[in-house]
């Protein structure tokens, strides 16, 4: 299990400590205010992309991300809708890691499950890290 990591310490197959994730109604409203989406259909459930955003935030909290990082891609599959205030458990790990000419490509996969252990959402976060001073 990994916590408080430097990006350069990561290896493919590493896993992070599981963490709980739940979203309040106020947090949903603040998120929708920021994105501009109407809250009409999100009175009892969490907008699916908000789950991705919060997992990305946790990744940023657990790993010291170097300058030059870019979030290049995102994949998501919903297995069911997450309910507001529901506590999910997130398992996340390093799915891919490669380096070419100083540019590092990494992908993180996260699996969100409910209290019964049933899948709610899976996602894949792709990032690219260029060396300092390089714009790609």
């Amino acid at each position, binding site marked *: 299990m990994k916590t408080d990591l430097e990006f350069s310490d990561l290896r493919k197959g590493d896993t992070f400590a599981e963490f709980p994730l739940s979203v309040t109604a106020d947090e949903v409203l603040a998120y929708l205010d920021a*994105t501009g989406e109407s809250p009409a259909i999100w009175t009892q*459930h969490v907008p*699916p992309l908000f789950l*991705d955003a919060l997992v*990305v935030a946790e990744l940023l909290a657990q790993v010291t991300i170097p300058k030059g990082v870019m979030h290049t*891609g*995102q994949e998501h599959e919903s297995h069911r809708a997450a309910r507001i205030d529901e506590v999910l458990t997130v398992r996340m790990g390093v799915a891919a890691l490669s380096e070419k000419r100083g540019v590092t490509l990494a992908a993180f996969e996260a699996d969100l499950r409910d209290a019964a252990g049933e899948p709610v959402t899976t996602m894949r976060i792709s990032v690219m890290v260029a060396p300092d001073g390089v714009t790609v």
Partner: protein
Amino acid sequence: MTAPQVPSVTRRIEQDRVDRYAVAGRDPNPIHRETPEAYAGPFGRPAAHGMILLAMVSEAMGAAFGLAWAETGSFKVRWRSPALPPVTVTASATLKKDQDGLATYEVVVQDEHGETLLTGTAAARYA
């Protein structure tokens, strides 16, 4: 039943929206805000979070599918260029495949100059 048409979503992205997203989305990266790091960074000024653009795709799919988007939806996207506020962006979806109640769309987000900022696919069940 047939696959629903997904409406386009157009939105003006100003810096204050980006600042609100930094708090709500818990992404305080200084390259998205009015900071020295943003002006010294690769874009020479703050860039909107890519997740704000992707949220517009999610909003469009939610408008077409309702809660089924959260229950059965999936997407796979890549960001192609940064959105530099103030900028007006449009997310749109074109039906690519409709089979056995699963509708798959090509999705794209472009700015007002026609530059492509995000591409990918999104899918959901309607039956």
